[in-house]
């Protein structure tokens, strides 16, 4: 039987545990991923002392290094608390407030991506079950709506003039310029401008409604990866943090999920042992279909051919089940994030290809190839490991 995922009731300092805190799993996962971005990209180091502040009263602390030092300490201590599951809500509030205070303390320090990080963490700190994830959701929707509106009301965006100049400075793909030269003058920049405006409005509206939410997330990912591919820029932390914030829009199963597998297959048992080792939240209950009491209306012989995942009322099989197991394992988000964090030079200025690969892997485009690969492995699994490997 699937067990209800309950708070552990005991503090666990394991950064890879996501239960037993004041935040539900997807929001805690989002908070930890944002914190990892802040720490690894050394954003905490540039938190400023008051200098040309947006809030003049902060000039009282001008030229006082203690102010910036306090902000840095607040971010580091708060980050440690979030990662170690200690009073996560208060810790998010502290880190978010430190970023917002830094922005108020120095106009030159202001960047939209820092503001967004500050807002997200601040609102995660204000989470309560009654409002659910809606504070964070509205924040994300507001950013897209306001950004799209600002572009729509700007004549240089509508005419493509902005994009034409911006591309000349920031786009680093020669293919873009070659394509531009084949088209009538301003056709490509104008198309790119309108595509961006439409996508941003589309993301805002799709994220608003439950039925279209998945479209909104896909559009958002496409926009982030597309911009990154064209320019090889991260737009500060936006490239990381915007996709992370979509975790506030996903529905995470409340109960542990059941994985039905072929218990007579050595390879499947090895996979089970490996996956269980990295399932720190005990999200998956593996059941050999031969011994399972409840097959959840799956035809008895089917799990012999394919792996099945039963997540609340939904069933997935084969490659789709494997993909969903990856997506429902919080650890995998860190595995996906870390390769994107090193400097561009590490990738010979082609880091965006990693993002493109992720997007393709999880997109329906790759599904037929993934399914074929899965079936090939499934067909040959009995040759890989003897059936005697059982636990």
């Amino acid at each position, binding site marked *: 039987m699937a067990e209800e995922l309950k708070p552990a009731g005991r503090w666990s300092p394991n950064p890879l545990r996501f239960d037993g805190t004041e935040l539900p799993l997807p929001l805690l996962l989002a908070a930890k991923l944002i914190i990892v971005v802040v720490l690894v990209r050394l954003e905490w180091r540039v938190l400023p002392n008051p200098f*040309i502040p947006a809030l003049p009263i902060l000039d009282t602390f001008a030229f006082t290094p203690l102010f910036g030092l306090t902000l840095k300490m607040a971010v580091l201590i708060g980050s440690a608390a979030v990662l170690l599951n200690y009073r996560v809500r208060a810790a998010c509030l502290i880190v978010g407030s430190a970023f917002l205070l830094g922005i108020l303390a120095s*106009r030159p320090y202001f960047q939209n991506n820092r503001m967004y990080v500050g807002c997200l963490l*601040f609102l995660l700190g204000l989470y309560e079950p009654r409002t659910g994830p809606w504070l964070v959701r509205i924040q994300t929707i507001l950013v897209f709506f306001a950004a799209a509106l600002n572009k729509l009301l700007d004549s240089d965006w509508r005419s493509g003039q902005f994009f034409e100049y911006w591309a000349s400075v920031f786009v680093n793909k020669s293919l873009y310029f070659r394509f531009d030269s084949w088209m009538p003058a301003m056709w490509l920049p104008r198309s790119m401008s309108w595509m961006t405006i439409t996508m941003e409005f589309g993301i805002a509206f799709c994220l608003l409604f439950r039925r279209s939410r998945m479209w909104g997330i896909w559009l958002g990912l496409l926009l982030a990866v597309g911009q990154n591919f064209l320019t090889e820029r991260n737009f500060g932390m936006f490239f990381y943090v915007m996709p992370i914030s979509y975790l506030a829009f996903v529905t995470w199963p409340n109960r542990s999920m059941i994985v039905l597998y072929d218990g007579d297959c050595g390879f499947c048992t090895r996979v089970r042992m490996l996956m269980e080792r990295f399932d720190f939240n005990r999200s998956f209950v593996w059941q050999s279909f031969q011994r399972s009491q409840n097959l959840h209306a799956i035809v008895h012989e089917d799990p012999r051919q394919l792996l099945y995942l039963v997540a609340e009322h939904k069933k997935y099989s084969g490659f789709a089940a494997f993909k969903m197991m990856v997506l429902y394992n919080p650890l995998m988000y860190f595995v996906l994030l870390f390769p994107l964090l090193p400097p561009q030079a590490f990738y010979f200025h082609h880091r965006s290809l990693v993002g493109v690969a992720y997007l393709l892997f999880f997109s329906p485009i790759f599904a037929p190839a993934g399914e074929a690969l899965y079936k090939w492995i499934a067909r040959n699994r009995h040759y890989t490991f003897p059936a005697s490997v059982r636990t």
Partner: protein
Amino acid sequence: MASTASVHGPQRLRGLIGIAFLLLQVGTVIHARFVGSRWLGAWAPNDYAVWYRFQVSVGNRALSSDEIAQRYALPAEGVYENPVLNITDIVRQREQTYGRADNAQVVLRYHRNRGPMEEWRWPKN
């Protein structure tokens, strides 16, 4: 009853602070429609491309690029992805506060999206 109120009080307060925080941003987005700058929650991320170059002199001595960068925490020349009014806000505030006694002469040449070259000066004549 008292314990229920004490449990719900902080919860309600958190919710109210969150809503007020978001409404403040909505106000900033609306306000941005009537002004040229884009600060804080106006949410116009990377929506602008302003090429600019500073010339600054203090007491008849022209400042070097490094000195300019230190003075305004902005490069002396570059492409800025916020409106040019954000730059002029920074210069104006710097010169009206910490730099008041310097009588700095600032010339900011810039163009938006390869448009005509424009000039902004401090102090205003």
